């Protein structure tokens, strides 16, 4: 069960990193669109 919590924590961290990257990328795209 402990290993399950370890995998869960790692997966959550990976998801957090992907999500933050997605939000930042969206922000950059929006900025570039507004520049046009």
């Amino acid at each position, binding site marked *: 069960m402990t290993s399950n919590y370890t995998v869960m924590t790692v997966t959550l961290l990976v998801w957090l990193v992907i999500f933050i990257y997605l939000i930042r990328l969206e922000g950059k*795209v929006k900025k570039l669109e507004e520049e046009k």
Partner: protein
Amino acid sequence: MIWNVILFVLMGWVIVMAFITPAPQQVIGEASRIFYFHVPQAWVAVVGFVVSMVASINYLRRGRLTDDDRARVAAELGFVFCLLATVSGSIFAKVTWNSYWNWDPRETSILFLLLIYGAYFALRSALTGDEKRARLAAVYSIFAFITVPFLVFVVPRVLPSLHPSDSVVDSAGQFSMSGTTAMIFFPALVAFSLLFFRLYILGVRISILKRRRIEESQL
């Protein structure tokens, strides 16, 4: 903004619940938890190929290069999720069958699918001229999609396979999922679909920006 919040919460829910609830398949054990990620990845890959085919038809009907961008972005995402499904399936195979690759019908059919869509990108990169590339790629994408239902749904069910096939519906066609499993699996399908559409919209917006930049530099 609201979609991002829903996506973040839903995926978080799926990840937490997938690991704190009992494994969905007691016979297979802990490895069966991959079901909550592997099946939605395969599902989203099929969605990607469907969207690519629809955008390709739209391109042939209307001749707008934006539709070609849509087809390419959807095929790229479909390919990435197909690759993820292959890798997660391969990890499952190592745990349950003691080998990463067994040439099981399910593994072979997904490999064919990857090769077919790999050829789509090779075709695109081999052609010059936006219109010519878009037209040929659209025709290829439509023909490529014809293989998807056979390779994903028909071949693995017709040929004898080690791949579990009663996770969602049993051999009699009855819904075989427990309440807890369904409570995680269906939100996982929604979360992965939402993630696909967020990435798809973003990919199309980037393609439009790139195209505008090229057009401006040519003026």
